[in-house]
């Protein structure tokens, strides 16, 4: 089976670099599946889980604020944060979720509302990834 190199990079340093058979992720306008030999592509990612498939195994990674750069033999994911399930602080994510929910209920001005919404999305995404490991 052909493989492609996947590297995940964040401002705090590289998270992972390895060979995988397929990358599937959620871009801004729908799911994307990348196999080796894909044409060069750039796409922004939503706050979601990126699934890396290889060796009959799927590795999820929670990304936020990122985008995907594809070359025929290499996929680079640049994200503001990216965590594999073992790195996720579940307690912290849960607290963040509660905080965001509270703020959403309080309904303040637009900016705070939007920020709380993003925070909630990030927390839910982290919890999802952490639970499905």
């Amino acid at each position, binding site marked *: 089976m052909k493989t492609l190199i996947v590297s995940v*990079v*964040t*401002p*705090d*340093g*590289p998270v992972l670099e390895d060979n995988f058979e397929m990358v599937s992720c959620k*871009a*801004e*306008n729908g799911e*994307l599946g990348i196999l080796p030999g894909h*044409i*060069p*592509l*750039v*796409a*922004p990612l939503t706050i979601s889980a990126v699934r890396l498939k290889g060796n009959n195994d799927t590795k999820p990674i929670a990304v936020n*604020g990122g*985008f995907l*750069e594809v*070359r025929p033999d290499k996929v*680079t994911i*640049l994200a*503001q*944060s990216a965590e594999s399930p073992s790195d996720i602080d579940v307690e912290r994510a849960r607290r963040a979720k509660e905080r965001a929910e509270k703020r959403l209920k309080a309904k303040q001005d637009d900016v705070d509302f939007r920020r709380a919404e993003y925070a909630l999305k990030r927390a839910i995404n982290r919890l999802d990834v952490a639970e499905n490991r």
Partner: protein
Amino acid sequence: MASLRDIKTRITSTQKTKQITKAMQMVSASKLNKAELNAKSFVPYSEKLQEVVASIANSGEEAEHPMLKAREVKKTAYFVITSDRGLAGAYNSSILRAVYRTIQEKHQSEDEYTVIVAGRVGRDFFKKRGIPVTKEITGLPDQPNFADIKDLTAETVQLYIDEEIDELIVYFNHYISAISQEVTAKQLLPLTNLDEGANKSSSMYEYEPNQEEILNVLLPQYAESLIYGALLDSKASEHASRMTAMQSATDNASDLIDDLSLQYNRARQAAITQEITEIVGGVAALE
């Protein structure tokens, strides 16, 4: 001439100060190591990001985005990075002097500029002089994560997008080596010098959904990462400059102790000599 006891007290107190500065120097040295590592691990991210941004921005004429285009400057924002604590030699003062001078030279009224400041020292400096501070962040850890500064960078970039500011200049100490740092002013927004690094990537990309959308996501991220990069750079400078300052404080303390010891020994010898003279004098008087 100071008495024996006075000199002794001064020696002990100087010794204690020396111990402290020595300890601080070693702490800063280890922090500097970590800060250098942090700055290094950020490099792959920023390089990749720059490469993609440059290749998009240079791929066609239609790549237009407000963040790429210079507009008439009505309000300039200065993003100033200082430290929370002092005792770092000229680290803070040189940067604050540079910013202050620029502001005095370039602007007539307060409406033309604003300051965004990181670090307690800088904040106090600008508040005291009545310079408008739009945003501030203090209490950043010595080894900052991207998450620590993300809100501030996002808000700063948003200011530009909302056209509240028309130019963003970041002032920070660029880390050259452990003994030399340089005050650097860098224009972040609008993004102009994207051509660097464009030649490296020859591949043309497909864009999903389209170029404009991607630039909308990518450019703010790019600008934020530049600010974070400047912060990491200046953290390394801060530790380096504190290390150097403490090193020279320790050296000065050693010199002072040497001088004082010499004085002390002289004074002691003088006292002994005087005692002997007195005894000899007394004996001579008896004979």
